């Protein structure tokens, strides 16, 4: 436990160091208003990373989140164009439902047909994106076609923070409660830690993984509407490749890809770390083309660091056997 705490403390330290480095060249970056802007910009990544955290915790992976986001966002935009009268809360509920449905498809294939999650979500990722094309024939839904209420919702300012930011805070709090205070949260840890033991304690492993995918899909759907409304545009390729950023945020946040180890704080901090890098690069005059390589390097450094910290100190009988595990 102290190890986990120190891991998050190190991440907080890294984030502060990053902010200090940027501030030394451009003090305006750390003004409260800009930090709020950076947080809001990172909110989609935070929400998706939290969903991904639950999935990775149960020894799965969801590579279809960005495609789910894009499809749900497009459906919301199309509904808004066809029926501008549909109120935003209905659209949000619809986004949650549609996202959850797509998550359920992933979860069902993993649960009932025991297909490895990476295969399922690689497949559904291309299928979801393809469906957007079938729906729209590749055309865009642009800002002027969307109703103003549709676009205004995520930007609405409450106590200095836009709704988009508040939703990230809310999702963090809810997942924090679910993970620490409910039997479902406990089941996620049990399934990830030791699926065999989880079976013997009466936990249905497949069903738990199914629920993890539903949560991840639901959050992806929610982000889909928020994304499209915030950027006021919807097309086939929105958030292309974003699933890798989401996985990267989780890995940087100390979530073990082998399952069983995850914290809500880790996922949020990992997402913030990437979000700050992304927002800081243009400020300190680094070409945005550097971003991909930097997030790749961050993943590798983080996972190396995590495995060093997490290595057990037990007696090693056969050194290579331990590696082979």
């Amino acid at each position, binding site marked *: 436990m102290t190890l986990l705490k120190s891991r998050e403390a190190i991440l907080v330290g890294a984030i502060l160091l990053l902010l200090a480095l940027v501030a030394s060249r451009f003090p305006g970056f750390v003004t409260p208003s800009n930090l709020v802007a950076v947080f809001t910009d990172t909110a989609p990544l935070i929400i998706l990373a939290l969903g991904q955290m639950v999935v990775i915790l149960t020894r799965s992976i969801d590579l279809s989140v960005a495609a789910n986001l894009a499809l749900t966002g497009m459906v919301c935009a199309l509904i808004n164009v066809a029926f501008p009268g549909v109120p935003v809360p209905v659209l949000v509920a619809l986004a949650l439902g549609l996202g959850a449905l797509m998550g359920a498809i992933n979860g069902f294939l993993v649960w009932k*047909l025991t297909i490895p999650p990476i*295969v399922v979500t690689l497949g559904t990722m291309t299928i979801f994106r393809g469906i957007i094309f079938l729906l729209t024939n590749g055309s865009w839904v642009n800002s002027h076609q969307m109703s103003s209420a549709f676009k205004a919702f995520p930007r609405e300012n409450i106590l200095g923070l836009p709704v988009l930011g508040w939703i990230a805070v809310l999702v963090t709090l809810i997942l924090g409660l679910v993970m620490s205070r409910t039997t479902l949260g406990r089941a996620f840890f049990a399934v990830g830690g030791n*699926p065999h033991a989880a*079976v013997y304690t009466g936990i249905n492993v497949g069903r738990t993984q199914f629920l993890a995918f539903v949560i991840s899909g639901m959050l992806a759907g929610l982000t889909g509407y928020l994304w499209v409304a915030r950027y006021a545009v919807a097309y086939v390729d929105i958030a292309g490749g974003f699933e890798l950023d989401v996985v990267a945020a989780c890995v940087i946040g100390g979530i073990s890809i082998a399952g069983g180890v995850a914290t809500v704080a880790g996922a949020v901090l990992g997402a913030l770390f990437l979000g700050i890098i992304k927002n800081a690069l243009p400020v300190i005059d680094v070409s945005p*083309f550097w971003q991909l*390589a930097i997030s*790749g390097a961050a993943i590798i450094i983080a*996972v190396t660091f995590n495995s060093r910290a997490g290595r057990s100190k037990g007696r090693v009988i056969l050194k290579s056997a331990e590696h*082979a595990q």
Partner: protein
Amino acid sequence: MSLAETQKTAARHIPDRLTTPLARTLKSWESLLLLVAIGIFILNSFASPYFLNAWNLSDATFNFTEKAMIAFAMALLIISGEIDLSVASIIALASTAMGLVMQAGFGTPAIVATGLVTGLLCGAFNGVLVTRLGLPSIVVTIGTMSLFRGISYIVLGDGAFRGYPSDFAWFGQGYVFWVITVELMIFAILAVIYGIVLHKTNFGRAVYAIGNNATAATFSGIRVERVKFILFLLTGLMSGLASVCLTSRLGSTRPSIASGMELEVVTMVVLGGVSILGGSGSIPGVVIAAFVMGLVTFGLGLLNVPGIVMSIVVGALLIGVIALPRIYQNLRRT
């Protein structure tokens, strides 16, 4: 529940061979896949009058030859229980390196060598991280996937390398004889080599042993890490080779080259009957899967189906081919 069940059935599979070899062959994944391939071939020849033409079919092989080169090495890697998602990014980085060498004024041999060496180095980088530091390959290669392509973006930005020497075009545009392209020839030679390595050598045995139980393999004297490292090297080398072919065929390098190809390579390997959990699979299966995917995309292309719709078909194929046998098993059990 399902966990306990699968374990029970796995434990029951002790006999090495119960049915006759012929029955086994007929019931195997490969023959099923071959039927699918023949079915698609016949459908295609009815669907489009342009399909049954030697030159068109020869062009169609470009749909899969480059991916299949990587798929052979990837099959071995996945059988051993690892995966490499950075292959398409290795193509981008190798292509960028070749572009730099070309701009420095070197000729074709140096360009090709650069591509292959860059691939090897990338594979070695993945291999060191996985085998020396004991990191999970899926995370490492998701990281290097961003890193390798990221370096290409840093070098090229939104620009491109053009103007490769004309003799460099031989790899991607040349013919060995009649309609047999250079790429198809490389594909065929590699298929034979990988088939022999996986199915007829100690090394291939070791790959299966590691995929089934790495600990047991270690205790039976197999140098697990060294084998895995070699497999990462091979995957890198094959990506470098695919990069040479692809760059030569396109005649230019952009940082977005071959983006998303890793998914198609993994799909090809899984479609070929290689278990994504490791431990089983065959090279003939991958060869047939390569033809199936090539025929599907070519057939749809002749029917003017847009690329993104083809990707739906590929995605559905990936899930379908794994789901159908399992649905069948579930139905038979109840």
